[in-house]
Protein backbone atom coordinates (compact mmCIF):
# COMPACT_ATOMS: atom_id res chain seq x y z
CA UNK A 1 0.00 0.00 0.00
CA UNK A 2 2.68 2.40 0.98
CA UNK A 3 4.58 1.61 -2.19
CA UNK A 4 2.41 3.84 -4.31
CA UNK A 5 3.18 6.74 -2.09
CA UNK A 6 6.96 6.43 -2.09
CA UNK A 7 6.79 5.96 -5.80
CA UNK A 8 5.07 9.21 -6.28
CA UNK A 9 7.54 10.94 -4.05
CA UNK A 10 10.39 9.67 -6.13
CA UNK A 11 8.97 10.49 -9.48
CA UNK A 12 7.72 13.81 -8.18
CA UNK A 13 10.84 15.93 -8.34
CA UNK A 14 11.74 14.55 -11.71
CA UNK A 15 8.31 15.39 -13.01
CA UNK A 16 8.30 18.92 -11.74
CA UNK A 17 11.64 19.77 -13.28
CA UNK A 18 10.33 18.85 -16.71
CA UNK A 19 9.82 22.43 -18.01
CA UNK A 20 12.31 24.50 -16.16
CA UNK A 21 15.30 22.35 -15.50
CA UNK A 22 15.16 20.19 -18.60
CA UNK A 23 18.33 21.57 -20.22
CA UNK A 24 20.31 20.51 -17.15
CA UNK A 25 19.53 16.83 -17.58
CA UNK A 26 22.08 15.20 -19.86
CA UNK A 27 20.67 12.96 -22.52
CA UNK A 28 22.62 9.73 -22.55
CA UNK A 29 20.84 8.07 -25.43
CA UNK A 30 18.95 9.45 -28.40
CA UNK A 31 17.24 7.08 -30.80
CA UNK A 32 15.76 8.38 -34.02
CA UNK A 33 13.77 6.59 -36.70
CA UNK A 34 15.18 3.21 -35.76
CA UNK A 35 14.17 0.46 -38.19
CA UNK A 36 15.03 -3.21 -38.14
CA UNK A 37 13.68 -5.89 -40.39
CA UNK A 38 14.67 -9.48 -40.86
CA UNK A 39 14.54 -10.75 -44.42
CA UNK A 40 12.98 -14.19 -44.72
CA UNK A 41 14.08 -16.86 -47.16
CA UNK A 42 11.10 -16.41 -49.45
CA UNK A 43 11.87 -12.72 -50.01
CA UNK A 44 9.39 -11.34 -47.49
CA UNK A 45 10.57 -9.39 -44.46
CA UNK A 46 9.64 -9.45 -40.80
CA UNK A 47 9.25 -5.93 -39.47
CA UNK A 48 10.62 -6.11 -35.95
CA UNK A 49 11.04 -2.35 -35.41
CA UNK A 50 9.55 0.29 -37.65
CA UNK A 51 10.47 3.90 -37.13
CA UNK A 52 10.93 4.14 -33.37
CA UNK A 53 12.30 7.30 -31.71
CA UNK A 54 12.91 8.03 -28.04
CA UNK A 55 15.59 9.26 -25.69
CA UNK A 56 16.92 8.52 -22.25
CA UNK A 57 18.57 10.74 -19.63
CA UNK A 58 21.27 9.89 -17.15
CA UNK A 59 19.98 7.93 -14.19
CA UNK A 60 16.55 7.55 -15.72
CA UNK A 61 14.48 4.42 -16.28
CA UNK A 62 12.40 4.12 -19.40
CA UNK A 63 9.94 1.27 -19.24
CA UNK A 64 9.38 -0.39 -22.61
CA UNK A 65 6.08 -2.22 -22.72
CA UNK A 66 4.58 -4.38 -25.44
CA UNK A 67 3.15 -7.79 -26.14
CA UNK A 68 5.30 -10.74 -27.02
CA UNK A 69 6.78 -10.27 -30.48
CA UNK A 70 6.28 -6.52 -30.54
CA UNK A 71 10.03 -6.00 -30.98
CA UNK A 72 11.18 -5.08 -27.47
CA UNK A 73 14.18 -7.37 -27.38
CA UNK A 74 15.10 -6.38 -30.89
CA UNK A 75 15.22 -2.73 -29.86
CA UNK A 76 17.53 -3.60 -26.98
CA UNK A 77 19.84 -5.61 -29.21
CA UNK A 78 19.94 -2.86 -31.81
CA UNK A 79 20.83 -0.22 -29.21
CA UNK A 80 23.90 -2.22 -28.21
CA UNK A 81 24.60 -3.14 -31.84
CA UNK A 82 24.36 -6.84 -31.06
CA UNK A 83 22.48 -6.87 -34.33
CA UNK A 84 22.79 -4.27 -37.05
CA UNK A 85 19.83 -1.91 -37.33
CA UNK A 86 18.43 -1.57 -40.84
CA UNK A 87 18.35 2.21 -40.63
CA UNK A 88 17.98 5.09 -38.21
CA UNK A 89 20.28 6.73 -35.74
CA UNK A 90 21.41 5.78 -32.25
CA UNK A 91 23.46 8.38 -30.40
CA UNK A 92 25.05 7.23 -27.18
CA UNK A 93 26.63 10.08 -25.19
CA UNK A 94 26.82 12.01 -28.42
CA UNK A 95 28.53 9.23 -30.39
CA UNK A 96 26.65 7.84 -33.37
CA UNK A 97 26.63 4.05 -32.94
CA UNK A 98 25.14 3.10 -36.28
CA UNK A 99 28.00 2.42 -38.69
CA UNK A 100 30.56 2.92 -35.93
CA UNK A 101 33.66 0.86 -36.86
CA UNK A 102 34.02 -2.39 -34.94
CA UNK A 103 37.10 -1.26 -33.07
CA UNK A 104 35.50 1.91 -31.73
CA UNK A 105 32.32 0.04 -30.91
CA UNK A 106 34.28 -2.41 -28.80
CA UNK A 107 35.84 0.46 -26.89
CA UNK A 108 32.37 1.77 -26.02
CA UNK A 109 31.00 -1.62 -24.97
CA UNK A 110 31.94 -1.38 -21.25
CA UNK A 111 29.68 1.65 -20.94
CA UNK A 112 26.52 -0.06 -22.12
CA UNK A 113 25.46 -3.47 -20.97
CA UNK A 114 22.54 -5.84 -21.19
CA UNK A 115 20.70 -8.17 -18.84
CA UNK A 116 19.22 -10.94 -20.90
CA UNK A 117 15.72 -12.28 -21.05
CA UNK A 118 17.03 -15.85 -21.24
CA UNK A 119 18.89 -15.74 -17.97
CA UNK A 120 20.52 -19.15 -17.99
CA UNK A 121 21.40 -19.15 -21.68
CA UNK A 122 23.31 -15.91 -21.31
CA UNK A 123 25.87 -17.51 -19.01
CA UNK A 124 28.61 -19.67 -20.50
CA UNK A 125 27.92 -23.13 -19.03
CA UNK A 126 31.64 -23.91 -18.86
CA UNK A 127 32.61 -20.91 -16.75
CA UNK A 128 32.26 -20.62 -13.00
CA UNK A 129 30.36 -17.74 -11.47
CA UNK A 130 33.64 -16.15 -10.43
CA UNK A 131 35.07 -16.42 -13.96
CA UNK A 132 31.93 -14.93 -15.46
CA UNK A 133 32.03 -11.88 -13.22
CA UNK A 134 35.79 -11.67 -13.65
CA UNK A 135 35.71 -11.66 -17.46
CA UNK A 136 34.94 -7.95 -17.98
CA UNK A 137 37.55 -7.00 -15.38
CA UNK A 138 40.12 -9.24 -16.99
CA UNK A 139 39.43 -7.80 -20.42
CA UNK A 140 39.25 -4.13 -19.53
CA UNK A 141 41.43 -3.49 -16.50
CA UNK A 142 45.06 -4.17 -15.77
CA UNK A 143 44.41 -5.20 -12.22
CA UNK A 144 46.18 -8.16 -10.67
CA UNK A 145 44.32 -11.30 -9.83
CA UNK A 146 44.21 -10.35 -6.17
CA UNK A 147 42.60 -6.97 -6.72
CA UNK A 148 40.17 -8.45 -9.16
CA UNK A 149 39.18 -11.03 -6.59
CA UNK A 150 38.39 -8.27 -4.12
CA UNK A 151 36.34 -6.53 -6.78
CA UNK A 152 34.46 -9.74 -7.55
CA UNK A 153 33.62 -10.16 -3.88
CA UNK A 154 32.40 -6.60 -3.79
CA UNK A 155 30.29 -7.02 -6.93
CA UNK A 156 28.75 -10.22 -5.69
CA UNK A 157 27.80 -8.66 -2.39
CA UNK A 158 26.26 -5.76 -4.31
CA UNK A 159 23.88 -8.15 -5.99
CA UNK A 160 23.39 -10.05 -2.75
CA UNK A 161 25.25 -13.17 -3.82
CA UNK A 162 27.34 -15.05 -1.32
CA UNK A 163 30.98 -15.27 -2.36
CA UNK A 164 30.94 -19.00 -1.65
CA UNK A 165 28.98 -19.39 -4.90
CA UNK A 166 31.94 -18.17 -6.94
CA UNK A 167 33.23 -21.66 -7.67
CA UNK A 168 29.89 -23.04 -8.83
CA UNK A 169 28.67 -23.36 -12.40
CA UNK A 170 25.55 -21.55 -13.60
CA UNK A 171 23.43 -24.70 -13.74
CA UNK A 172 24.03 -25.21 -10.01
CA UNK A 173 22.33 -21.90 -9.15
CA UNK A 174 18.68 -20.95 -8.83
CA UNK A 175 17.12 -18.72 -11.46
CA UNK A 176 17.32 -15.69 -9.19
CA UNK A 177 21.00 -16.31 -8.44
CA UNK A 178 21.72 -16.73 -12.14
CA UNK A 179 20.15 -13.39 -12.86
CA UNK A 180 22.24 -11.81 -10.10
CA UNK A 181 25.37 -13.19 -11.77
CA UNK A 182 24.19 -11.58 -15.00
CA UNK A 183 23.70 -8.27 -13.20
CA UNK A 184 27.09 -8.48 -11.47
CA UNK A 185 28.78 -9.09 -14.81
CA UNK A 186 26.92 -6.19 -16.41
CA UNK A 187 27.77 -3.63 -13.73
CA UNK A 188 31.37 -4.79 -13.24
CA UNK A 189 32.75 -2.00 -15.40
CA UNK A 190 30.39 0.64 -14.03
CA UNK A 191 28.42 1.24 -17.22
CA UNK A 192 26.31 4.32 -17.93
CA UNK A 193 23.41 2.53 -19.51
CA UNK A 194 21.82 -0.89 -19.10
CA UNK A 195 19.21 -2.69 -21.16
CA UNK A 196 17.18 -4.89 -18.81
CA UNK A 197 15.37 -7.35 -21.04
CA UNK A 198 12.57 -8.78 -18.94
CA UNK A 199 15.00 -9.45 -16.11
CA UNK A 200 12.36 -11.14 -13.99
CA UNK A 201 10.07 -12.91 -16.44
CA UNK A 202 11.82 -16.26 -16.04
CA UNK A 203 11.83 -16.12 -12.24
CA UNK A 204 9.52 -17.12 -9.41
CA UNK A 205 7.68 -14.33 -7.55
CA UNK A 206 10.10 -14.18 -4.60
CA UNK A 207 13.24 -13.76 -6.67
CA UNK A 208 11.21 -11.47 -8.86
CA UNK A 209 10.79 -8.96 -6.02
CA UNK A 210 14.39 -9.39 -4.90
CA UNK A 211 15.79 -8.66 -8.32
CA UNK A 212 13.60 -5.59 -8.69
CA UNK A 213 14.89 -4.28 -5.37
CA UNK A 214 18.50 -4.96 -6.31
CA UNK A 215 18.05 -3.13 -9.60
CA UNK A 216 16.44 -0.15 -7.95
CA UNK A 217 19.10 0.07 -5.26
CA UNK A 218 21.90 -0.14 -7.81
CA UNK A 219 20.38 2.70 -9.78
CA UNK A 220 20.13 4.90 -6.70
CA UNK A 221 23.70 4.10 -5.76
CA UNK A 222 25.39 4.38 -9.15
CA UNK A 223 23.01 6.40 -11.28
CA UNK A 224 22.63 3.87 -14.10
CA UNK A 225 20.20 4.66 -16.88
CA UNK A 226 17.87 1.72 -17.54
CA UNK A 227 15.86 0.66 -20.53
CA UNK A 228 13.51 -1.62 -18.64
CA UNK A 229 11.81 -4.04 -21.03
CA UNK A 230 8.79 -5.87 -19.74
CA UNK A 231 5.24 -6.83 -20.39
CA UNK A 232 4.55 -6.80 -16.67
CA UNK A 233 2.85 -3.46 -16.12
CA UNK A 234 3.07 -3.53 -12.33
CA UNK A 235 6.82 -4.00 -12.51
CA UNK A 236 7.08 -1.17 -15.02
CA UNK A 237 5.01 1.04 -12.81
CA UNK A 238 7.28 0.16 -9.91
CA UNK A 239 10.61 1.00 -11.45
CA UNK A 240 10.16 3.41 -14.37
CA UNK A 241 10.27 7.16 -14.60
CA UNK A 242 8.91 7.19 -18.10
CA UNK A 243 7.09 4.56 -20.10
CA UNK A 244 6.97 3.76 -23.81
CA UNK A 245 4.26 1.54 -25.28
CA UNK A 246 5.07 -0.60 -28.27
CA UNK A 247 2.55 -2.25 -30.56
CA UNK A 248 3.66 -4.46 -33.41
CA UNK A 249 7.07 -2.87 -34.02
CA UNK A 250 5.75 0.69 -33.62
CA UNK A 251 5.98 3.11 -30.74
CA UNK A 252 2.40 4.30 -30.06
CA UNK A 253 2.63 6.24 -26.84
CA UNK A 254 5.43 7.55 -24.66
CA UNK A 255 5.38 9.80 -21.60
CA UNK A 256 6.03 10.17 -17.93
CA UNK A 257 4.89 7.23 -15.87
CA UNK A 258 2.08 9.04 -14.08
CA UNK A 259 0.80 10.46 -17.36
CA UNK A 260 0.69 7.08 -19.00
CA UNK A 261 -0.87 5.29 -16.09
CA UNK A 262 -3.35 7.94 -15.01
CA UNK A 263 -4.37 9.49 -18.29
CA UNK A 264 -3.55 7.10 -21.10
CA UNK A 265 -4.52 8.51 -24.47
CA UNK A 266 -4.05 5.81 -27.06
CA UNK A 267 -6.79 3.17 -27.38
CA UNK A 268 -4.19 0.41 -27.19
CA UNK A 269 -2.69 1.77 -23.97
CA UNK A 270 -6.17 1.93 -22.52
CA UNK A 271 -6.71 -1.68 -23.42
CA UNK A 272 -3.38 -2.72 -21.94
CA UNK A 273 -4.07 -0.96 -18.66
CA UNK A 274 -7.55 -2.38 -18.38
CA UNK A 275 -6.05 -5.85 -18.16
CA UNK A 276 -4.09 -5.19 -14.99
CA UNK A 277 -5.05 -4.55 -11.39
CA UNK A 278 -2.81 -1.97 -9.74
CA UNK A 279 -2.21 -1.66 -6.03
CA UNK A 280 -2.36 2.10 -6.47
CA UNK A 281 -5.99 3.23 -5.99
CA UNK A 282 -5.37 6.37 -8.06
CA UNK A 283 -5.11 4.28 -11.19
CA UNK A 284 -8.66 3.51 -12.25
CA UNK A 285 -9.00 0.25 -14.06
CA UNK A 286 -10.62 0.55 -17.43
CA UNK A 287 -13.30 -1.94 -18.45
CA UNK A 288 -12.11 -2.49 -21.96
CA UNK A 289 -10.64 -5.31 -23.95
CA UNK A 290 -9.50 -5.29 -27.57
CA UNK A 291 -10.97 -7.86 -29.91
CA UNK A 292 -9.38 -9.43 -32.94
CA UNK A 293 -5.89 -10.66 -33.64
CA UNK A 294 -2.57 -8.89 -33.91
CA UNK A 295 -1.71 -8.64 -37.61
CA UNK A 296 1.34 -10.60 -38.77
CA UNK A 297 4.65 -8.75 -38.61
CA UNK A 298 5.39 -10.01 -42.12
CA UNK A 299 2.65 -8.25 -44.04
CA UNK A 300 2.12 -5.06 -42.11
CA UNK A 301 -1.12 -3.24 -42.90
CA UNK A 302 -1.09 0.20 -44.41
CA UNK A 303 -2.09 2.95 -42.00
CA UNK A 304 -2.45 2.47 -38.26
CA UNK A 305 -1.65 -1.10 -37.24
CA UNK A 306 -4.51 -1.05 -34.76
CA UNK A 307 -7.09 -0.08 -37.36
CA UNK A 308 -8.95 -3.38 -37.55
CA UNK A 309 -9.24 -3.66 -33.76
CA UNK A 310 -9.74 -0.02 -32.78
CA UNK A 311 -13.16 1.05 -31.46
CA UNK A 312 -12.69 4.69 -32.49
CA UNK A 313 -11.00 4.17 -35.84
CA UNK A 314 -11.77 6.73 -38.50
CA UNK A 315 -12.26 5.25 -41.91
CA UNK A 316 -10.30 6.90 -44.71
CA UNK A 317 -7.66 8.28 -42.40
CA UNK A 318 -6.66 5.55 -40.01
CA UNK A 319 -6.42 2.90 -42.72
CA UNK A 320 -4.31 4.95 -45.11
CA UNK A 321 -1.63 6.63 -43.09
CA UNK A 322 0.24 5.84 -39.91
CA UNK A 323 -0.48 8.68 -37.42
CA UNK A 324 2.16 11.30 -36.72
CA UNK A 325 3.14 11.86 -33.08
CA UNK A 326 0.84 14.22 -31.22
CA UNK A 327 2.30 16.15 -28.29
CA UNK A 328 0.05 16.25 -25.22
CA UNK A 329 2.45 18.29 -23.12
CA UNK A 330 4.93 17.15 -20.48
CA UNK A 331 6.85 15.17 -23.13
CA UNK A 332 3.79 12.97 -23.55
CA UNK A 333 3.57 11.84 -27.17
CA UNK A 334 0.80 9.77 -28.70
CA UNK A 335 0.55 8.25 -32.19
CA UNK A 336 -3.16 8.37 -32.98
CA UNK A 337 -5.41 10.18 -35.47
CA UNK A 338 -8.47 10.34 -33.28
CA UNK A 339 -7.32 11.40 -29.83
CA UNK A 340 -10.50 13.30 -28.96
CA UNK A 341 -12.66 10.37 -29.97
CA UNK A 342 -10.54 8.05 -27.92
CA UNK A 343 -10.69 10.31 -24.88
CA UNK A 344 -14.49 10.63 -25.03
CA UNK A 345 -14.99 6.96 -25.60
CA UNK A 346 -12.98 5.87 -22.58
CA UNK A 347 -14.30 8.54 -20.27
CA UNK A 348 -17.77 7.40 -21.13
CA UNK A 349 -16.83 3.78 -20.43
CA UNK A 350 -15.39 4.66 -17.06
CA UNK A 351 -18.38 6.77 -16.12
CA UNK A 352 -20.72 3.93 -17.06
CA UNK A 353 -18.71 1.55 -14.93
CA UNK A 354 -18.61 3.88 -11.96
CA UNK A 355 -22.38 4.47 -12.21
CA UNK A 356 -23.06 0.79 -12.22
Amino acid at each position, binding site marked *: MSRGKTDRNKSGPLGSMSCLKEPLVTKILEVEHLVKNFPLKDGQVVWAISDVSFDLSEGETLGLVGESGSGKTTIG*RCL*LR*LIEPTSGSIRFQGTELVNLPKKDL*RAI*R*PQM*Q*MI*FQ*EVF*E*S*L*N*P*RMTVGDIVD*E*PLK*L*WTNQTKGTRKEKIKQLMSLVELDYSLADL*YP*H*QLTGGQQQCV*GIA*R*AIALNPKFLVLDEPTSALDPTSHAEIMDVLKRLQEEFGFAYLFISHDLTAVEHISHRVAILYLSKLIEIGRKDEIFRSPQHPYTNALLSSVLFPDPNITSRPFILCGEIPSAVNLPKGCFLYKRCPVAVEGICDTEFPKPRDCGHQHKVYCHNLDGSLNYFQKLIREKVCK
Partner: protein
Amino acid sequence: MKLFLSMGWETIKKSNLYMFGFISSVIFLILWAIGPYLAPYNPLYSDFDSFNLPPSSQHWFGTDQVGMDIFSRVISAPRIDLTIAFLANIISVVIGSILGVITGYYKNWWSEALARILDLIQVFPSFILAMTAVVISGQNIQNLIIVIGIFNVPIYARLVRSKVYAVRESKFIEAAICTGNSDRRILFFHILPSSLQPAYIQFSVVLGWVILLVSSLSFVGVGVRPPTAEWGAMISTGVPQILIGHWWIPIFPGLALGLCVLSFGIMGEALNKIMDPTRL
Protein backbone atom coordinates in the same frame (compact mmCIF):
# COMPACT_ATOMS: atom_id res chain seq x y z
CA MET B 1 38.06 -33.09 -13.48
CA LYS B 2 37.75 -34.94 -10.17
CA LEU B 3 34.08 -34.06 -10.13
CA PHE B 4 33.71 -35.33 -13.65
CA LEU B 5 35.43 -38.63 -12.85
CA SER B 6 33.35 -39.28 -9.79
CA MET B 7 30.18 -38.37 -11.66
CA GLY B 8 31.20 -40.67 -14.50
CA TRP B 9 31.76 -43.49 -12.07
CA GLU B 10 28.36 -42.89 -10.50
CA THR B 11 26.69 -43.12 -13.90
CA ILE B 12 28.54 -46.29 -14.82
CA LYS B 13 27.82 -47.94 -11.49
CA LYS B 14 24.11 -47.40 -11.86
CA SER B 15 23.75 -49.41 -15.06
CA ASN B 16 24.72 -53.04 -15.63
CA LEU B 17 25.16 -52.34 -19.29
CA TYR B 18 27.60 -49.49 -18.72
CA MET B 19 29.43 -51.57 -16.16
CA PHE B 20 29.79 -54.39 -18.65
CA GLY B 21 31.00 -52.00 -21.35
CA PHE B 22 33.44 -50.38 -18.99
CA ILE B 23 35.01 -53.60 -17.72
CA SER B 24 35.24 -55.12 -21.15
CA SER B 25 36.75 -51.92 -22.60
CA VAL B 26 39.35 -51.94 -19.86
CA ILE B 27 40.16 -55.57 -20.62
CA PHE B 28 40.67 -54.76 -24.29
CA LEU B 29 42.88 -51.83 -23.36
CA ILE B 30 44.95 -54.11 -21.13
CA LEU B 31 45.22 -56.63 -23.96
CA TRP B 32 46.32 -53.80 -26.19
CA ALA B 33 49.12 -52.96 -23.77
CA ILE B 34 50.31 -56.42 -22.78
CA GLY B 35 48.22 -58.92 -24.77
CA PRO B 36 51.14 -60.62 -26.52
CA TYR B 37 52.87 -61.18 -23.18
CA LEU B 38 49.82 -62.88 -21.72
CA ALA B 39 49.52 -65.29 -24.63
CA PRO B 40 50.29 -68.91 -23.72
CA TYR B 41 51.83 -69.58 -27.13
CA ASN B 42 53.74 -67.45 -29.58
CA PRO B 43 50.89 -66.06 -31.72
CA LEU B 44 53.00 -66.46 -34.87
CA TYR B 45 54.38 -69.90 -34.23
CA SER B 46 52.81 -72.59 -36.35
CA ASP B 47 53.00 -76.06 -34.91
CA PHE B 48 52.56 -78.47 -37.81
CA ASP B 49 51.87 -81.32 -35.47
CA SER B 50 48.70 -79.75 -34.20
CA PHE B 51 46.64 -78.01 -36.87
CA ASN B 52 42.87 -77.68 -37.04
CA LEU B 53 42.48 -78.83 -33.47
CA PRO B 54 39.12 -78.02 -31.85
CA PRO B 55 39.07 -76.14 -28.55
CA SER B 56 40.59 -78.12 -25.68
CA SER B 57 42.30 -77.50 -22.36
CA GLN B 58 45.59 -77.23 -24.24
CA HIS B 59 44.36 -74.83 -26.87
CA TRP B 60 41.38 -73.01 -25.40
CA PHE B 61 40.17 -71.70 -28.74
CA GLY B 62 41.68 -74.50 -30.81
CA THR B 63 44.32 -74.16 -33.51
CA ASP B 64 44.04 -73.01 -37.09
CA GLN B 65 44.96 -74.70 -40.37
CA VAL B 66 48.66 -73.95 -39.96
CA GLY B 67 48.72 -74.93 -36.30
CA MET B 68 48.77 -71.51 -34.66
CA ASP B 69 47.08 -71.19 -31.27
CA ILE B 70 43.90 -69.21 -31.81
CA PHE B 71 43.56 -68.00 -28.21
CA SER B 72 47.03 -66.51 -28.28
CA ARG B 73 46.29 -64.84 -31.58
CA VAL B 74 42.92 -63.48 -30.46
CA ILE B 75 44.36 -61.77 -27.39
CA SER B 76 47.38 -60.50 -29.29
CA ALA B 77 45.27 -58.91 -32.02
CA PRO B 78 44.22 -55.77 -30.06
CA ARG B 79 47.84 -54.68 -30.28
CA ILE B 80 47.57 -54.05 -34.01
CA ASP B 81 43.84 -53.36 -34.32
CA LEU B 82 43.63 -50.81 -31.54
CA THR B 83 46.87 -49.09 -32.50
CA ILE B 84 45.68 -48.55 -36.05
CA ALA B 85 42.24 -47.50 -34.86
CA PHE B 86 43.55 -45.07 -32.27
CA LEU B 87 46.03 -43.36 -34.57
CA ALA B 88 43.54 -43.15 -37.44
CA ASN B 89 40.87 -41.83 -35.12
CA ILE B 90 43.18 -39.17 -33.75
CA ILE B 91 43.91 -37.99 -37.28
CA SER B 92 40.16 -37.79 -37.95
CA VAL B 93 39.35 -36.02 -34.73
CA VAL B 94 42.03 -33.37 -35.14
CA ILE B 95 41.41 -32.59 -38.81
CA GLY B 96 37.66 -33.03 -38.43
CA SER B 97 37.44 -30.62 -35.51
CA ILE B 98 39.47 -27.98 -37.30
CA LEU B 99 37.39 -28.27 -40.45
CA GLY B 100 34.20 -28.37 -38.41
CA VAL B 101 35.04 -25.17 -36.61
CA ILE B 102 36.09 -23.45 -39.82
CA THR B 103 33.02 -24.48 -41.79
CA GLY B 104 30.79 -23.67 -38.84
CA TYR B 105 32.22 -20.29 -38.01
CA TYR B 106 32.81 -18.72 -41.39
CA LYS B 107 29.75 -18.06 -43.49
CA ASN B 108 31.15 -17.61 -46.96
CA TRP B 109 31.11 -19.55 -50.18
CA TRP B 110 34.29 -21.55 -49.71
CA SER B 111 33.40 -22.75 -46.25
CA GLU B 112 29.96 -23.61 -47.56
CA ALA B 113 31.52 -25.57 -50.43
CA LEU B 114 33.90 -27.34 -48.07
CA ALA B 115 30.98 -28.34 -45.87
CA ARG B 116 29.12 -29.75 -48.89
CA ILE B 117 32.14 -31.76 -49.99
CA LEU B 118 32.56 -33.21 -46.52
CA ASP B 119 28.89 -34.17 -46.44
CA LEU B 120 29.22 -35.82 -49.80
CA ILE B 121 32.24 -37.87 -48.73
CA GLN B 122 30.36 -39.09 -45.72
CA VAL B 123 27.60 -40.45 -47.89
CA PHE B 124 29.96 -42.57 -49.95
CA PRO B 125 30.79 -46.14 -49.04
CA SER B 126 33.73 -45.52 -46.74
CA PHE B 127 34.80 -49.12 -46.94
CA ILE B 128 35.09 -48.97 -50.72
CA LEU B 129 36.85 -45.61 -50.67
CA ALA B 130 39.30 -46.86 -48.09
CA MET B 131 39.90 -50.12 -49.93
CA THR B 132 40.68 -48.34 -53.19
CA ALA B 133 42.82 -45.73 -51.55
CA VAL B 134 44.88 -48.21 -49.58
CA VAL B 135 45.55 -50.32 -52.65
CA ILE B 136 46.62 -47.34 -54.68
CA SER B 137 48.76 -45.67 -52.07
CA GLY B 138 50.53 -48.93 -51.34
CA GLN B 139 49.48 -51.47 -48.80
CA ASN B 140 51.19 -50.85 -45.53
CA ILE B 141 50.09 -50.02 -42.02
CA GLN B 142 51.08 -46.38 -42.27
CA ASN B 143 48.96 -45.81 -45.37
CA LEU B 144 46.11 -47.74 -43.80
CA ILE B 145 46.13 -45.35 -40.85
CA ILE B 146 46.32 -42.24 -43.01
CA VAL B 147 43.56 -43.36 -45.37
CA ILE B 148 41.14 -44.41 -42.65
CA GLY B 149 41.97 -41.26 -40.74
CA ILE B 150 41.18 -39.06 -43.72
CA PHE B 151 37.95 -40.77 -44.71
CA ASN B 152 36.52 -40.45 -41.22
CA VAL B 153 37.20 -36.73 -41.05
CA PRO B 154 33.65 -35.85 -42.18
CA ILE B 155 32.09 -37.64 -39.19
CA TYR B 156 33.77 -35.26 -36.78
CA ALA B 157 33.59 -32.23 -39.03
CA ARG B 158 29.85 -32.61 -39.23
CA LEU B 159 29.38 -33.07 -35.49
CA VAL B 160 31.52 -30.08 -34.64
CA ARG B 161 30.02 -27.91 -37.36
CA SER B 162 26.46 -28.33 -36.22
CA LYS B 163 27.52 -27.67 -32.66
CA VAL B 164 29.36 -24.50 -33.71
CA TYR B 165 26.21 -23.39 -35.51
CA ALA B 166 24.21 -23.84 -32.33
CA VAL B 167 26.79 -22.29 -30.01
CA ARG B 168 27.48 -19.23 -32.11
CA GLU B 169 23.80 -18.34 -32.06
CA SER B 170 23.50 -18.84 -28.32
CA LYS B 171 22.83 -16.03 -25.90
CA PHE B 172 26.06 -16.39 -23.99
CA ILE B 173 27.96 -15.53 -27.15
CA GLU B 174 25.86 -12.39 -27.43
CA ALA B 175 26.65 -11.69 -23.78
CA ALA B 176 30.34 -12.20 -24.51
CA ILE B 177 30.18 -9.67 -27.35
CA CYS B 178 28.48 -7.32 -24.95
CA THR B 179 31.28 -7.75 -22.43
CA GLY B 180 33.66 -6.67 -25.17
CA ASN B 181 35.43 -9.90 -26.10
CA SER B 182 37.44 -9.72 -29.29
CA ASP B 183 36.34 -11.90 -32.23
CA ARG B 184 39.35 -14.08 -31.72
CA ARG B 185 38.65 -14.63 -28.05
CA ILE B 186 35.03 -15.40 -28.79
CA LEU B 187 36.02 -18.08 -31.27
CA PHE B 188 38.79 -19.69 -29.25
CA PHE B 189 37.62 -19.15 -25.71
CA HIS B 190 33.84 -19.24 -25.92
CA ILE B 191 32.85 -21.16 -29.05
CA LEU B 192 35.61 -23.72 -29.42
CA PRO B 193 35.54 -25.52 -26.05
CA SER B 194 31.78 -25.99 -26.15
CA SER B 195 31.84 -27.11 -29.74
CA LEU B 196 34.48 -29.78 -29.45
CA GLN B 197 32.62 -31.72 -26.84
CA PRO B 198 30.49 -33.80 -29.23
CA ALA B 199 33.65 -34.79 -31.08
CA TYR B 200 35.38 -36.28 -28.13
CA ILE B 201 32.23 -37.81 -26.74
CA GLN B 202 31.86 -39.62 -30.05
CA PHE B 203 35.51 -40.71 -30.08
CA SER B 204 34.83 -44.01 -28.40
CA VAL B 205 31.95 -44.93 -30.71
CA VAL B 206 33.91 -44.06 -33.84
CA LEU B 207 36.83 -46.04 -32.48
CA GLY B 208 34.58 -49.08 -32.63
CA TRP B 209 33.61 -48.31 -36.23
CA VAL B 210 37.25 -47.89 -37.18
CA ILE B 211 38.14 -51.25 -35.68
CA LEU B 212 35.35 -52.72 -37.81
CA LEU B 213 36.70 -50.97 -40.87
CA VAL B 214 40.27 -52.17 -40.24
CA SER B 215 39.21 -55.75 -39.86
CA SER B 216 36.92 -55.54 -42.90
CA LEU B 217 39.85 -54.32 -44.96
CA SER B 218 42.04 -57.06 -43.58
CA PHE B 219 39.26 -59.54 -44.29
CA VAL B 220 39.46 -58.78 -48.02
CA GLY B 221 43.25 -58.83 -47.86
CA VAL B 222 43.83 -55.12 -48.16
CA GLY B 223 44.66 -54.21 -44.59
CA VAL B 224 46.83 -56.18 -42.25
CA ARG B 225 48.20 -59.30 -43.90
CA PRO B 226 48.30 -62.75 -42.36
CA PRO B 227 50.07 -64.23 -40.48
CA THR B 228 50.01 -61.09 -38.35
CA ALA B 229 47.53 -61.65 -35.55
CA GLU B 230 44.59 -59.49 -36.59
CA TRP B 231 40.91 -60.31 -36.14
CA GLY B 232 39.72 -59.57 -39.70
CA ALA B 233 42.56 -61.48 -41.29
CA MET B 234 41.98 -64.41 -38.96
CA ILE B 235 38.28 -64.53 -39.87
CA SER B 236 39.23 -64.46 -43.51
CA THR B 237 41.51 -67.50 -43.21
CA GLY B 238 38.60 -69.26 -41.53
CA VAL B 239 36.10 -68.79 -44.36
CA PRO B 240 37.00 -71.98 -46.25
CA GLN B 241 37.44 -73.78 -42.95
CA ILE B 242 33.92 -73.21 -41.76
CA LEU B 243 32.58 -75.10 -44.79
CA ILE B 244 34.21 -78.22 -43.42
CA GLY B 245 33.03 -77.56 -39.90
CA HIS B 246 36.09 -75.97 -38.34
CA TRP B 247 33.94 -73.29 -36.80
CA TRP B 248 36.43 -72.21 -34.12
CA ILE B 249 38.88 -70.78 -36.58
CA PRO B 250 36.77 -67.76 -37.65
CA ILE B 251 34.24 -67.64 -34.79
CA PHE B 252 36.55 -66.79 -31.90
CA PRO B 253 38.31 -63.86 -33.56
CA GLY B 254 34.90 -62.69 -34.79
CA LEU B 255 33.41 -62.78 -31.31
CA ALA B 256 36.35 -60.86 -29.91
CA LEU B 257 36.07 -58.27 -32.65
CA GLY B 258 32.36 -57.73 -32.06
CA LEU B 259 32.79 -57.61 -28.31
CA CYS B 260 35.45 -54.96 -28.66
CA VAL B 261 33.31 -52.80 -30.95
CA LEU B 262 30.33 -53.30 -28.67
CA SER B 263 32.27 -52.27 -25.56
CA PHE B 264 33.54 -49.08 -27.10
CA GLY B 265 30.05 -48.34 -28.36
CA ILE B 266 28.59 -48.75 -24.88
CA MET B 267 31.35 -46.59 -23.44
CA GLY B 268 30.45 -43.94 -25.99
CA GLU B 269 26.83 -44.03 -24.87
CA ALA B 270 27.87 -43.82 -21.24
CA LEU B 271 30.06 -40.82 -22.02
CA ASN B 272 27.12 -39.22 -23.78
CA LYS B 273 25.03 -39.72 -20.68
CA ILE B 274 27.76 -38.40 -18.39
CA MET B 275 28.34 -35.29 -20.47
CA ASP B 276 24.68 -34.59 -21.06
CA PRO B 277 24.15 -31.09 -19.66
CA THR B 278 20.50 -31.75 -18.85
CA ARG B 279 21.58 -34.27 -16.26
CA LEU B 280 23.97 -31.95 -14.45
